[in-house]
């Protein structure tokens, strides 16, 4: 069975004072484990203040299926509706490949580093 770990941390910009959330995903996401994971992420988005920025740190995400990409799209829609921003960062080459072929990297900003992601969010 695929295993994925989610860590949620808070980030406050020292220059702007803006708050952001960092979702760090480690492991693989497929049909066997996607639902519990997305429920946790939805809960954070729902409880956060409007305008919050979100960084998805995918450095150690080794696989994601199309269903999880669908949820990424919905996270983006919900975050934008709430006046916030969403950035993906440190994508593994195969993850970048998956998101690119689906077209998501044309819509959601992708940063190479966490520093770059902080500036984009």
């Amino acid at each position, binding site marked *: 069975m695929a295993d994925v770990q989610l860590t949620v941390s808070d980030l406050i910009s020292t220059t702007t004072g803006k708050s952001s959330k960092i979702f760090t995903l480690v492991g693989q996401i497929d049909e066997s484990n996607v639902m519990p994971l997305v429920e946790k992420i939805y809960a954070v988005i729902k409880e956060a203040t409007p305008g919050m920025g979100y960084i998805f740190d995918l450095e150690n995400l080794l696989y994601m*299926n*199309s269903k999880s990409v669908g949820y990424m*799209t919905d996270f983006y829609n919900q975050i934008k509706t709430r006046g916030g921003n969403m950035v993906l960062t440190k994508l593994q080459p195969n993850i970048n490949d998956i998101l690119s072929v689906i077209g998501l990297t044309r819509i959601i900003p992708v940063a190479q580093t966490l520093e770059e992601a902080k500036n984009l969010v």
Partner: protein
Amino acid sequence: MTDLVSGSEVAASQNPQPKPTEIKIILPTNAYFMSGIRDFTLSLIRNMTDFSEQWAFRFQSVVDELCSNAIEHGSSSDDTIEIRFLNLPGEAIEIYVEDHGTGPDGPLTAEQIREKIAKNKAMDVLQMGLRGRGLAKIVSEWTDKMEFFDTAKGGICVMVRKNLHDDKFKEVLPDAMDPTHIVI
């Protein structure tokens, strides 16, 4: 009297064409097993074919999406699906995934699936909802052929094929070292 043998016959006997390799897997319809199938696919492509590392990861996704679709839409929870890998050395790889049509929404036809995929392919990525990207985007883009067949057992068989040497890539980058890579 000496029998005369053509040069091509001599060459063929000295360098026989490698035979295709077929591997068949029967998988219970449980997403629990998908990580193992992905690992197997990655290993198979790396060790048994001439596709690049990038394509090994792409086939991981292709197989995962095909199997997940067969499990979710084409199968009951206590059924099996069949996966067949057919490696044609130096030429292509073909992957077949077959279900028994015992899914929760009743048996789908190949034509219904083709129509659904065509509809999803035409949609904007943000408007697609949560589902539909697997076959319409991932499998469709990363294979040269994707065909659906109704089976005698009432299910669906999907066949995908990826050619090792893609002439489409040669047109873009004729001097590319790796014919399965495209540089944008």
